[in-house]
């Protein structure tokens, strides 16, 4: 080591415990129970994920260099994380030189305050919003509301969620849990100026949303967006979308405010050639999404006169400090891992309690916001919200090894917490297994578990603390006899003799 010792670095802080939407108020198993009872949602999600899954497979298979693109995407994102300080400074310089104003936010509160101040400075009490994970993560809408500013979501699905006072259930199609009849009812109830004879034809529903939002686009002077990519070497920002509401928000108002996580950089403009192939195919299963906008600072006579960029930490630097877990910061938010996840498909996104649901959310959320601040932190249940089947790793366009990260987080959780059922069981089994006599005794004792098994021989509820395990899983009841008891018994000996006869016949 040649570098000078500068003292121990302080671990960067996580996202604040109670601000924004990085923690639910229920553990995953509790929330999942409620979700599993919602048959409408399960039906809708089943149909949606199966459809998108099929389309994604088709368009990914179409590219003979898909694996090479994945490798390049993964390496590019790893490179960004490895060189983040230098790339962030370059990006800031480029944006500033092209007429943008860069703000930095340590956490959700600081980002919310910056945005709210910028909107208030424009004497605006209404802002347009294009769907953005970052602003949802920090709870910006709620914060603006408390300052007397109304945020208007312009993505159709986000609008449905907002008008329904609901929460999103999917990253990409946030209102997928709603059917057309429910959407019609929400519009009739909540959308000003809606046609009272509205039926539930999707074309008519989209038309009403278009009418309502058009008037907003023509009159609102400030818009807020997220960003899919920020290009370090040119200061270019990019938003990928379908409906045109993104283009509207990015070009019509006088002032544009973009909130972007510090990990969303790509090194150079050319690198967009990789991500513009990976993202649409992984996310909606399209060769390309209908609209992508790219802008660098401000351009006279075209689009907003003022551009503000808020660079958000909110736990990202803490995630970066974990040499293993930092891989989750490569995520480009395509949602492919949600669509292949058997757990997500049945529970839906709300059960995860975070803006980031599904397999990637189960890795990212506990890292951004922590999972051990209290004994029953809901985020501590997220690394267990997976069957570790590996499908999410197979589809991830930037090759994030989500199953291994989940196992690592389970390990960290057990290490950090002295209270988990898993930790208690592991301690008990290591004691039992350290001596043959104790092991035999323990096996006999486990037979007592049979009384807990139902008629189907399955245990669905154990007493505390073991209920932490059975609250989300059934456990087979222990067998009547231990293996050693069977080996020593008459039918055990007979089975061994029969096997031997069988083997001898086979040889002769």
């Amino acid at each position, binding site marked *: 080591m040649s570098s000078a010792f500068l003292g121990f*670095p302080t*671990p960067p*802080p996580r996202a604040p415990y109670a601000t924004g939407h990085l923690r639910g108020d229920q553990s995953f198993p509790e929330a999942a129970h409620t979700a599993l009872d919602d048959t409408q949602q399960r039906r*809708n999600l089943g149909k*949606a994920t199966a459809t998108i899954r099929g389309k994604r497979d088709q368009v990914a298979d179409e590219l003979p260099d898909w694996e*090479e*693109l994945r*490798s*390049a995407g993964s*390496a590019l994102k*790893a*490179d960004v*994380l*490895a060189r*983040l*300080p230098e790339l962030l*400074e370059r990006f800031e310089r480029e944006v500033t030189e092209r007429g943008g104003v860069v703000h*930095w936010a*340590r956490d959700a509160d*600081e980002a919310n305050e910056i945005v709210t101040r910028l909107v208030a400075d424009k004497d605006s009490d209404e802002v347009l919003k294009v769907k953005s994970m970052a602003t949802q993560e920090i709870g910006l809408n709620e914060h603006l509301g408390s300052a007397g500013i109304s945020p208007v979501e*312009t993505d*159709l699905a986000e609008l449905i969620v907002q008008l329904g006072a609901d929460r999103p259930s999917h990253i990409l*199609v946030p209102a997928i849990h709603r*059917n*057309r009849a429910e959407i019609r009812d929400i519009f009739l109830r909540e959308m000003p100026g809606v046609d009272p004879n509205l039926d539930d034809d*999707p*074309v008519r*529903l*989209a038309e009403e*949303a*278009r009418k309502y939002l058009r008037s907003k*686009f023509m009159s609102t002077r400030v818009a807020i967006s997220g960003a899919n990519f920020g290009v370090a070497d040119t200061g270019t920002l990019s938003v990928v979308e*379908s409906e*045109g*509401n993104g*283009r*509207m928000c990015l070009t019509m108002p006088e002032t544009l405010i973009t909130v972007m996580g*510090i990990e969303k950089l790509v090194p150079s*403009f*050319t690198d*967009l*050639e*990789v991500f*513009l192939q990976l993202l649409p195919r992984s996310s909606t299963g399209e*060769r*390309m*999404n*209908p*609209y992508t*906008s*790219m*802008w*660098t600072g401000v*351009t*006279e*006579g*075209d*689009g907003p006169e003022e551009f503000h960029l808020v660079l958000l930490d909110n736990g990202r*630097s803490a995630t970066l400090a974990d040499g293993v877990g*930092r891989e989750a910061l490569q995520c480009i938010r395509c949602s492919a891992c949600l669509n292949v996840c058997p757990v997500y498909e049945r529970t839906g996104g709300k059960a995860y309690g975070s803006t980031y649901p599904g397999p990637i959310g189960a890795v990212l959320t506990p890292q951004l916001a922590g999972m051990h601040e209290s004994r029953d932190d809901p985020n501590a249940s997220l690394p267990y919200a997976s069957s570790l089947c590996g499908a999410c790793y197979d589809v991830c366009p930037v090759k994030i090894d989500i199953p291994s990260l989940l196992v690592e987080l389970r390990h960290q959780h057990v290490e950090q917490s002295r209270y988990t059922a898993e930790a208690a069981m592991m301690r008990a089994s290591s004691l039992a297994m350290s001596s043959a006599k104790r092991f035999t005794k323990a096996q006999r004792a486990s037979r007592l578990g049979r009384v807990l098994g139902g008629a189907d021989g399955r245990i669905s509820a154990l007493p505390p603390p073991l209920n932490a395990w059975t609250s989300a899983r059934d456990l087979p009841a222990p067998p009547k006899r231990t293996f050693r008891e069977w080996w020593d018994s008459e039918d055990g000996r007979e089975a061994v003799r029969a096997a031997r006869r069988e083997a001898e016949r086979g040889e002769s």
Partner: protein
Amino acid sequence: MNARDVVLGRVRDALAAAPPEPVTVPREYRGGRESSGEQRLELLVDRLGEYRADVYRCSVAETASTVAEALGDARLVAVPGGLDASWTEEFTGRVEVDSAESPVRWLEDVDGVVTSSAVTCAETGTVFLDAAGDQGRRALTLVPDLHVCVVDLSSVVLGVPEAVGRLDPVRPTTMISGPSATSDIELDRVEGVHGPRTLRVVVRVDG
């Protein structure tokens, strides 16, 4: 310390706590591919069709008649200031030139818009507009309900890397793949929630 220094300091601390390996980016994916005009044309027409965009093939000499046909029964049409005026010569309705000084609202009364394009990717059916004089400001191709876009086959490339390589990064750029669409209601595709509901691409095969 200000927020900037704090965040950058945290990022440096994080990397010091777990120093990353230097990364070499593998670039084995396809790029710089050569292709024939017929190959690109066939691919582009197929992709645009799948997006439910209408495609018109013509020669440079037939531009005016084809543009007029693509504009259909539009009455008032807006064009960017740098567009070749001969392109709309055979259109019988009114043609107005858009400019940065006109309020965006006037575009609401416009039935359609005619523009050129910067580059087009055949494999994904994507037209790139870069706000040059013959493409206009971004709002022009966004607010009216019909967009007629003229694409020269010589500006069509096979793949995304070839297209991105032809762009000027600092120009405001819009990539268009079919008309505006949403699948938010039970995954039923509906055209035109906010942007143009109809996209007509005029491909000049000898241009």
